[in-house]
């Protein structure tokens, strides 16, 4: 392993570690989400009628560990897919910098 290959591996490991740190900071959800559940405001009449606050899914991105599906592009952004891409690119550069003997 030459100096450039070591650099490629180091950068790859740092980037993968960074995705994990971002994931933890984002809440550590298992699935990436494009919608989150929020409670709507309760009206005075709702309070009088004794019903609990209504909930709804609103568009919002949550970075997860794995993609829940492959329907939307945003769903695919996750620790697993980003790490896979980093590994792939690192591998390509690793072989590119391989010193021919």
């Amino acid at each position, binding site marked *: 392993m030459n100096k450039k290959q070591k650099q490629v591996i180091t950068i790859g490991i740092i980037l993968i570690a960074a995705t994990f740190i971002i994931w933890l900071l984002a809440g550590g959800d298992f*699935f990436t989400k494009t919608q989150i559940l929020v409670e709507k405001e309760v009206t005075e009449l709702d309070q*009088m009628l004794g019903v609990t606050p*209504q909930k709804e899914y609103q568009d919002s991105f949550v970075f997860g560990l794995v993609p829940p599906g492959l329907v939307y592009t945003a769903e695919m952004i996750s620790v697993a897919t980003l790490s896979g891409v980093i590994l792939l690119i690192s591998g390509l550069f690793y072989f590119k910098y391989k010193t021919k003997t």
Partner: protein
Amino acid sequence: MKKILKTSFVALAAITISFAQGFKIETTGEQTFNFEDKRNQATFFSTTPLEDVTGISNAISGKVTFDVSDINTLTGTISIPVASLDTGIELRNEHLASPNWMDAEGYPDIIFKIKGVSDVKVEADNKLSAKVTGDFTAHGVTKEVLADVTMTYLVESEQTKKRAPGDLLGVQASFNVNLSDYDIENMLIGQKVAEEVKIDIGMVGSNAK
């Protein structure tokens, strides 16, 4: 003799009161409430080893009928289309509607049919809490469930008219079901879902004709 008659009358009155618990409001007689408001909501909550799953539906429909002075006369049916359930993840919604889960094509509706009322407690003149027994049908299987229900009756006023015409009935119900009772596979996008699912229903109906 007078004493016996007096005691009998008191006992009869006590029995009548205990069996005829209802709302103490201006409206009287039998009332039918329709639940068609899109703000009505059913929530299905479950857990997996990795995260919680909440499904919501705003497509509740149905009606209930009861004598205002006696909630034990309560009858009615509430239904929710399976296809209306939203879990916030498109693929999970597809799994939920698939034949292994709720089978939206084969069994399009989740239905709760009221069978009886017990343990009625008068919380206020216009508010009652009770246990409501009903037949809960999902995935083509019907089982009896017991729901904790709170009902609040609001006689029509300028404030209630802003939401809907007629008197309003607010209903908050909660009960649990076991997936295995309804022949439902408990895997959802590769995750094992807890056997027990908590169902909450919050809805407001109107008696306007």
